[in-house]
């Protein structure tokens, strides 16, 4: 496109072709930015649609349009699609026409670009929907079906038709047996990653066939299964195996680990909570490995013995992650680990007895690249340990210091001054005060700050944090009882990116404080347990202001009534999880709430004393097809109609009946 050489205005954005605009927009990754692009102009909306690679559909009505409007779609996330079932999924997908001639256009363009589909917790989708999905997406490579508790062998048979499948996650698909696993193994020989955590029906036989039929497997997760050493024998034949997880496999012992050592290309092993393995087994597994990067033996061994420590030196170059949670650890052990594994990036010592300042000092003296240190419940540690960490590990990003009572602002000052990359710090149940927060405020990269049970924290501390930590995404103030509305004002003005906020039991907070919180537009998770002073006014401002709200906990907010919940019904259309136990809601309010919130799928409503039986009946019927999890008072089980309870069960809703006495707190 040539321009007059005399034109000084230059080209406008209209001069860019759709392709070029799409090329430019491909560089915009953040979903919020992409949404803003769609609203800028028609051309931008078209270009955005042409370049969009990932979509997460929240309502099933939007599904047909999404599948047709985005020709470059590669990743489809349907796990939050409220009410998705086989019928709606099959109806939305294009149908391949078996007999299409060259002249006739096929009834629907197949989704040729879709490679990854996520259906976690999509309990309404069964084999019919999966069959339609596999037929419509011939290039399907990765499927996540985790927590589809009702999924079984028939669903596996449907997936087995996806010959190009490379990744399959079937965690907690309780109905799957060896038969279903065999179907997938035979149908998808190119499988590289498989996770069958919690699929308790799977046995050694299934694993043996899997290993025979899928030689490309690189990553396998058999956690919580009742498999024995024979499974490890089978898996050891996989030449490309890199990553194996067998958390809490209680029938595996040292012999199995010995068999597994035949695989010498392992990069990551997780044998946490396997209480029949010992240091000998671990040592024989490590022996001969040359590429091992991650080891997790948390809560399995009792202590780490010299046979393991000496083997660590052979993988000292490659080891980056070592988790020893729950083990008995001595300072000499940490000294040995530090001197052999100098490239450690993450160390887990959560709940380890015997971890002292000396141990930490000798560890960090060698491991300067550490980015994550977890010393939760290492009660003996003092500020000296923090000083050592601060001086040696300048790259530290994540510090978990929960329940370390001797940590104070002096140690945190060292950390804050020397470690500018700090992103996450957990100080739950530590004895820290506002001075500590004043120091931590220097860390402008801070994303996650957990201060639960720190009763000495007050508004002043929050003012410090909000002055500089503008990137904060998660703030936990559980039981920080000294916090008032002023503290929230500071947080709302300085930390605008907060997504998760926990204010449970900060009982001084009133509606004014919630008005400040309503300014946090990106807030998705809000916990307000036992805030006895807040009323419907506060909830209304939250509902109007926090448009992204997904989870809200109002348990024991005794003064919240129908008015507040009415606002939620009207404005919080993205709400998926709600707890209103002990709130002052009536049957009418409840009915309105459950009827209007199309995405709501998890509701806890124990002790709603103002709701009559008819109220519960109407409300639950209104939301029947959408609800997935319910928590109700046990007494209701006998008075609600059997028809309703059967309907709930048929729609895939699990009900938890609790028997709790009516006690008022706060």
């Amino acid at each position: 496109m040539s321009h007059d050489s005399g034109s000084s205005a230059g080209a406008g954005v209209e001069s860019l072709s759709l392709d070029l605009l799409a090329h430019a927009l491909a560089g915009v990754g953040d979903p919020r930015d992409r949404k803003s692009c769609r609203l800028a102009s028609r051309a931008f909306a078209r270009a955005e649609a042409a370049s969009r690679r990932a979509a997460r559909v929240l309502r099933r009505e939007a599904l047909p349009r999404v599948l047709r409007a985005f020709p470059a779609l590669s990743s489809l996330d349907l796990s939050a699609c409220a009410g998705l079932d086989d019928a709606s999924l099959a109806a939305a997908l294009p149908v391949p026409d078996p007999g299409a001639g060259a002249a006739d256009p096929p009834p629907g363009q197949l989704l040729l670009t879709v490679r990854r589909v996520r259906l976690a917790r999509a309990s309404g989708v069964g084999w019919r929907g999966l069959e339609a999905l596999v037929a419509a997406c011939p290039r399907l490579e990765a499927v996540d079906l985790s927590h589809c508790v009702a999924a079984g062998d028939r669903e596996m048979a449907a997936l087995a038709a996806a010959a190009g499948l490379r990744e399959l996650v079937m965690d907690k698909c309780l109905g799957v047996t060896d038969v279903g696993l065999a179907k997938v193994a035979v149908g998808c020989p190119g499988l590289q990653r498989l996770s069958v955590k919690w699929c308790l029906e799977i046995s050694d036989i299934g694993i043996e066939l899997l290993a025979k039929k899928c030689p490309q497997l690189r990553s396998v997760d058999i956690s919580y299964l009742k498999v024995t050493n024979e499974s490890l024998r089978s898996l050891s034949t996989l030449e490309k195996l890199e990553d194996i997880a067998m958390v809490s496999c209680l029938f595996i012992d040292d012999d199995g680990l010995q068999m597994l050592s035949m695989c010498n290309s392992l990069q990551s092993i997780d044998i946490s909570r396997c209480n029949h393995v010992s240091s000998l087994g671990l040592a024989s597994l490590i022996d001969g490995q040359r590429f091992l990067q991650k080891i997790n033996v948390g809560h399995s061994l009792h202590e780490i013995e010299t046979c393991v420590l000496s083997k660590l030196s052979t993988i000292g170059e490659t080891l980056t992650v070592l988790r020893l949670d729950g083990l008995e650890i001595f300072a000499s052990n940490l000294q040995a680990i530090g001197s052999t594994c100098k490239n450690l990036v993450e160390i887990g010592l959560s709940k380890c007895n015997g971890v002292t300042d000396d141990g930490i000092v000798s560890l960090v003296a060698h491991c300067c690249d550490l980015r994550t240190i977890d010393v939760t419940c290492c009660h003996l540690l003092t500020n000296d340990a923090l000083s050592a960490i601060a001086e040696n590990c300048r790259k530290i990003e994540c510090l978990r210091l929960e329940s370390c009572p001797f940590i104070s602002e002096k140690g945190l000052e060292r950390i804050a001054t020397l470690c500018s990359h700090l992103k996450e710090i957990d100080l739950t149940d530590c004895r820290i005060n506002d001075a500590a927060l004043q120091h931590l405020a220097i860390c402008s990269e801070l994303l996650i700050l957990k201060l639960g049970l720190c009763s000495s924290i007050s508004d002043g501390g929050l003012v410090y944090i909000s002055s500089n930590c503008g990137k904060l995404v998660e703030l936990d103030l559980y039981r920080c009882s000294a916090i008032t509305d002023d503290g929230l004002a500071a947080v709302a003005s300085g930390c605008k990116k907060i997504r998760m906020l926990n204010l449970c039991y900060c009982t001084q907070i009133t509606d004014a404080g919630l008005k400040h919180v309503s300014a946090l537009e990106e807030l998705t998770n809000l916990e307000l347990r036992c805030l006895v002073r807040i009323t419907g006014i506060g909830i209304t401002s939250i509902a109007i202001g926090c448009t992204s709200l997904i989870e809200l906990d109002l348990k024991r907010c005794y003064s919240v009534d129908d008015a507040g919940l009415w606002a939620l019904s009207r404005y919080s259309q993205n709400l998926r999880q709600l707890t209103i136990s002990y709130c002052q809601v009536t049957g009418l309010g409840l009915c309105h709430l459950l009827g209007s919130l199309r995405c709501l799928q998890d509701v806890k409503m124990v002790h709603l004393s103002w709701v009559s039986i008819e109220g519960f009946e109407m409300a639950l019927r209104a939301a029947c097809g959408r609800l997935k999890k319910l928590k109700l008072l046990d007494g209701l089980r006998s008075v609600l109609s059997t028809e309703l309870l059967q309907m709930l069960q048929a729609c895939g809703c699990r009900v938890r009946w609790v028997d709790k006495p009516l006690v008022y707190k706060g």
Partner: protein
Amino acid sequence: MAAAADSSGDGGTSSGEKTIVLVSSDNSARFEVREAAALLSQTVRRMIDEAGADASGDGITLPDVDAKTLAKVLEYCNKHAPASSSSSAAEAAPPAEGEEDLERFDREFVRVDMGTLYSLVTAASYLKIEGLLNLTCQTIADMIKGKTPEQIRKTLGITSEFTPEEEDEVRRENAWAF
């Protein structure tokens, strides 16, 4: 940068390297550049291959690129051109400058008004200069980050032709999908 017209497009510079003459769309400007720099453009490369040695005597005319934009594009090419001038090695050889130096140059290079930036995108696409296309497109993408639709329109100079109903429809979809 407009050099005096050379009678032979293959004339050597004082350093003995091959040069190529590129002419802007309105014929108003002729630029003599090192072959290595010119060959960063796949389009130019193809034109030379097709035309053969003799046709390059008069310079290669680029009908879709005006003088101002061509000057800017060649500024980029000269900086990013590999040290070696042989055409076969041009693609594989690394640029003569250091990487940090290039990054700094790139950052300064895209500090232009929107009109120039859009012209650069179109030119880079036409001339098939991958590095320049990626750089300019990423610059536009970076300008969009963190902005509201209104701010995007203002920064990029867009007028929205959405009717209120269309805009509502997009907003609704934004809420229900993604």
